């Protein structure tokens, strides 16, 4: 059957801008790890759906604000992460935990703001949600409940795993030349594993999948296109669990250095729509967080976090364990990235519409929902 995904959805700047406003500024998105903002004044900065954001620890309270000073629009914090009070480096305006201006040097002498004007100065704040040691952000002025976007059993299992994350984190970013949607479509298609990853992932794990019956194929239009209806329709796009079968985990010394999460020898995957993938290929010893950040229609940053389960005690070579695993994950992910870049490079506005089979039902449901959002004025 024919897909609903016209090539324009992967190529058009106008569509990309609409996605940013109608999806990325409405839904809960991965924003970082609490271990990076564990101490007072620790911060991380991000650009999410085009908005610069600072997530900062104020004496134990973690808050998210727009990272733009209200005076001359300078970024308040700079760099991926750090530890510094929320003070603009340009003219030293400082801000408190509510986002209100705390101090403006020489305010009365040179700015002459009225009391009302000064009181109205407040940074735009965004909703944050902590799931284990992961942080999610919502840029909407009226954010939907976290539970509206994700099923409770999905959140519970992800939270359980994320509570076991160690505080030593390895991070890097790859710049992919493809549209962000190609990644989530690829991740919801286990059929590619045995072909694209024949010598890598398929050699160590087996991902069984089914081709569901006609009723699941999203052949008819969405019935409920109200805001709650469209939010509800989105919930099944995120799921996770022990999806892959693996052989017994090969005993290497570092496994004994960490408190394993769970006991099941399986390849765990969590897919949080729209742009988060967590993989645990060794039954709870380590985790890869892949965060796919749309940059432009043909450009996606893949931010990778690598973490083990909590260490029993610190040891000198732990970062080398992270690095070895990072290199291993890269060999598999490079196979995906290379293919997705090939797909993107072949796309043009008159390219053939993809033909899907029954096993691609999840992607079909996502695209029915996605095209409804893109082609109509309906909102989530």
């Amino acid at each position, binding site marked *: 059957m024919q897909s609903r995904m016209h090539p324009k959805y992967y190529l058009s700047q106008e569509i990309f801008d609409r996605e940013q406003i109608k999806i990325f500024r409405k839904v809960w998105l991965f924003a970082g790890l609490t271990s990076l903002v564990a101490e007072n004044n620790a911060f991380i900065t991000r650009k999410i759906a085009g908005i610069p954001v600072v997530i900062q620890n104020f004496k134990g309270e973690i808050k998210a604000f727009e990272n733009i000073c209200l005076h001359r629009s300078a970024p308040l914090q700079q760099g991926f992460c750090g530890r510094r009070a929320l003070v603009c480096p340009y003219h030293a305006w400082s801000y408190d935990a509510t986002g209100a201006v705390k101090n403006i040097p020489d305010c009365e002498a040179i700015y002459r703001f009225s009391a009302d004007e000064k009181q109205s100065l407040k940074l735009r704040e965004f909703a944050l949600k902590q799931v284990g040691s992961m942080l999610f952000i919502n840029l909407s002025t009226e954010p939907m409940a976290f539970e509206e976007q994700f099923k409770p059993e999905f959140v519970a299992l992800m939270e359980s795993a994320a509570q076991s994350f160690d505080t030593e984190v390895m991070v890097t970013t790859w710049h992919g030349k493809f549209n962000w949607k190609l990644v989530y479509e690829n991740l919801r298609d286990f059929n590619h594993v045995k072909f694209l990853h024949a010598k890598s992932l398929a050699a160590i794990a087996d991902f069984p999948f089914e081709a569901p019956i006609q009723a699941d194929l999203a052949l008819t239009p969405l019935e409920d296109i109200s805001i709650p209806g469209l939010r509800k329709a989105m919930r099944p796009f995120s799921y996770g669990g022990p999806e892959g079968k693996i052989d017994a985990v090969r005993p290497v010394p570092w496994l004994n250095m960490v408190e394993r999460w769970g006991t099941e020898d399986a390849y765990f995957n969590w897919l949080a729509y729209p742009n988060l993938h967590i993989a645990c290929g060794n039954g709870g010893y380590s985790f890869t967080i892949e965060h796919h950040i749309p940059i432009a229609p043909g450009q996606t940053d893949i931010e990778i976090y690598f973490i083990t389960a909590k260490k029993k005690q610190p040891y000198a070579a732990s970062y080398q364990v992270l690095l070895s695993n*990072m290199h291993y994950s890269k060999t598999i992910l490079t196979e995906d990235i290379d293919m997705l870049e090939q797909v993107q490079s072949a796309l043009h506005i008159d390219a053939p519409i993809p033909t899907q089979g029954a096993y691609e039902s999840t992607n079909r449901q996502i695209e029915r929902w996605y095209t409804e959002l893109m082609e109509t004025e309906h909102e989530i």
Partner: protein
Amino acid sequence: MKSRWVVGTGDYLDLAYHAWTQASATEDVQKITVPQGADYEFDLSIFDTLHPELGDVFIAVDDRFGNFKRMELFRVALERGFTLSSFVSANADVASEAKIGKNVFIGPQAIIGHHCKIEYNSVVHAGAQIGANSHLRASVWIEPGVQIGSRVEIGTHAIIRTGAIVRSGIKVGKGAELGWPQLYSADIADKTVYDTRYDEPILVYGS
């Protein structure tokens, strides 16, 4: 004749063995490969056949696992009472007052400036240049041709790959890997990895 057991694995073992063979006419130089199992652990039984009174050991394991595998064998040899002399190529230009630690390898055409300190178990390959007053801490790996300015501090277990140039006065954090062929002109945080396969540096936060 005393023995010189060059102990380790891989290409660097071969390189160190040949360097010692050419340099020591008065020693019986032997190459001893230590096998690594599927779990990457060394089979240390070979050490049971070696005795400190009959010879000395040089540990030659490359930069694998951030130089920790070389450190592991170095410690085993030290615990068993070996002296672990360093190797300085006769063709290297090493300032006379430079301090060179145990089990250090300095290859041919390497230049070590005055008042440098090269701590134990570090490797400075052929043609690398280390500027005056620089300090390489333990278990560092410097590849052929690397250029390091003066007053540079290089943290333990760091790796500097061919093509890297480190500007004078820079501090390279422990465990850092400078693998992009470029000039490094700012301090490098601990455990930061510049690997040519990656688009951005790999960073480590927390502990």
